[in-house]
C-alpha cells in the first residue's frame, strides 16, 4: 500500500526532508542499513549520484527501495558503472513520469539536455508560455553548473526530474559538486559587504548579482528561477556550503545548516496547473538609468 501511495501522491518537499537526507547521504550508515526515505524524489538521486562519485564502495549496499529507484533513474549509467546483476532484467515503464539522471558534461549540449527534460512535460498539456519559461530556466541553471562546477572528471553536475500526473506536481533537481555559492560570489569584491551580512544562497537570486560580472556573466539563472517559482507559489530550495534559501508558497526562509554541501543543490517543485510567464520576469528587469526603450525590431 505504501508503495502504491509513493507512486501516485506527492507530498511537498520541506527543508527538513532535504536536510535530513543530505546528512544521511554523507553518512557511512547509508550503505549499511540506514533508514531510507519513505517517499523518494529526484533530489535524493541527484545528491546520491554526487556522493557515490566520491565514495564508490557504496554501489551495491543501498537499501532496497532506494536501489529500485536508483535503477529507474539510471544511477549506474550516470556513474559509468555496471548495474548490479539483480536489476539488469528489471525495467519499469517510467518514461512518461521520470527523466532519469543526466550528467552535465558539455555546455554545448545544454539544448539537448533541456529538450530531454521538457519531453517529460509535453503530455501534461502545459501551455506554450510555461514550456518556454521552463526551457529558459533550465538553460540558465545548467549554464550556472558549467560556470561554477570546476569540472575535473567530465561531470559538471547532474539533473533529473519526475512528474506525478495524478497529483499534478513536478520536481526538477540540479546538483553540482563545484564551488560553493559563497566562495564564488566572494570573487566579486563589490559584493563583500553584502556577503558579510546576507545569506549567500538568497543573495545569488537577486538581479545583477554575479561572481563574474567582468567576464560577461550577469547572474540571470537564479533570478529567473526565483521569480518564476514565486509567480506560481512553487518551491525553490537552494543549498550550498552551510547555507540554504527556501521559497515556498511565496514565503521565504534562509538559514545556516548543520551539514555542509560541497557545491550547489537546486530543488524546484511546483503545481503543474499553475502557468509560468517568463515575459513578466523580463519586464521586471530594470533598464539602465537614462536609457529609454527603443524599437529594435523591423
Amino acid at each position: 500500500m505504501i508503495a502504491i501511495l509513493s507512486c501516485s501522491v506527492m507530498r511537498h518537499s520541506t527543508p527538513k526532508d532535504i536536510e535530513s537526507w543530505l546528512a544521511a547521504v554523507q553518512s557511512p550508515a547509508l550503505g549499511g542499513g540506514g533508514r531510507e526515505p519513505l517517499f523518494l524524489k529526484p533530489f535524493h538521486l541527484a545528491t546520491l549520484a554526487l556522493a557515490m562519485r566520491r565514495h564508490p564502495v557504496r554501489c551495491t549496499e543501498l537499501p532496497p527501495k532506494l536501489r529500485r529507484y536508483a535503477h529507474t533513474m539510471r544511477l549506474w549509467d550516470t556513474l559509468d558503472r555496471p548495474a548490479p546483476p539483480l536489476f539488469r532484467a528489471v525495467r519499469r515503464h517510467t518514461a512518461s513520469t521520470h527523466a532519469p539522471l543526466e550528467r552535465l558534461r558539455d555546455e554545448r549540449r545544454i539544448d539537448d539536455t533541456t529538450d530531454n527534460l521538457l519531453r517529460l512535460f509535453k503530455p501534461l498539456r502545459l501551455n506554450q508560455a510555461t514550456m518556454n519559461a521552463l526551457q529558459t530556466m533550465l538553460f540558465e541553471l545548467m549554464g550556472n553548473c558549467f560556470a561554477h562546477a570546476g569540472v575535473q572528471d567530465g561531470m559538471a553536475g547532474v539533473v533529473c526530474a519526475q512528474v506525478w500526473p495524478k497529483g499534478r506536481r513536478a520536481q526538477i533537481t540540479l546538483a553540482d559538486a563545484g564551488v560553493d555559492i559563497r566562495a564564488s560570489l566572494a570573487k566579486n569584491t563589490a559584493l563583500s559587504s553584502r556577503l558579510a551580512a546576507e545569506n549567500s544562497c538568497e543573495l545569488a537570486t537577486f538581479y545583477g548579482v554575479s561572481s563574474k560580472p567582468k567576464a560577461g556573466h550577469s547572474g540571470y539563472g537564479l533570478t529567473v528561477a526565483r521569480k518564476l517559482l514565486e509567480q506560481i507559489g512553487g518551491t525553490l530550495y537552494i543549498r550550498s556550503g552551510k547555507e540554504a534559501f527556501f521559497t515556498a508558497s511565496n514565503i521565504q526562509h534562509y538559514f545556516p545548516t548543520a551539514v555542509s554541501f560541497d557545491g550547489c543543490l537546486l530543488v524546484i517543485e511546483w503545481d503543474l496547473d499553475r502557468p509560468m510567464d517568463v515575459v513578466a520576469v523580463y519586464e521586471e528587469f530594470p533598464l539602465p538609468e537614462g536609457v529609454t526603450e527603443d524599437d529594435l525590431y523591423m
Partner: protein
Amino acid sequence: MISICSVDIDSIAVGFGSRPLGVKARNSLLHLLESNSVLEIDFHNRSIAPSFADECLGQLAARLGLPDFKRRIRLLNVCESTKPLVRHVVLRRCSEAAAEAAAQ
C-alpha cells in the same frame, strides 16, 4: 552602396541555450559585418536564453554602440516572449559600455 546580408540564425548557432553558443554566434556576426553594411538576422520565432541573448546581441551592441547596432543589425521574427529580453540585454550592455568609455 549598402550591402545587406540575410542571416539565418540556425546557420550561426546550433542552439540558443548557453553563453558559449552566444559567443560563437556573435563572432560569426562580427565576421559578416566586415564585408556587409547591414545584417538581417532571422530568428524564426525561436525562444532564446538570457545568457545566449546577452552574449550574442548584448555584447555585439556594446561593441558596435547603440546607433550603429540599430543602423546595421535588423532583427527579424523575434518571438514576442523574447523581445523584452533582447531589448534589455542590448540597452544594458550599451549603457555599461558607454559608462566604461566615459570613465576612461
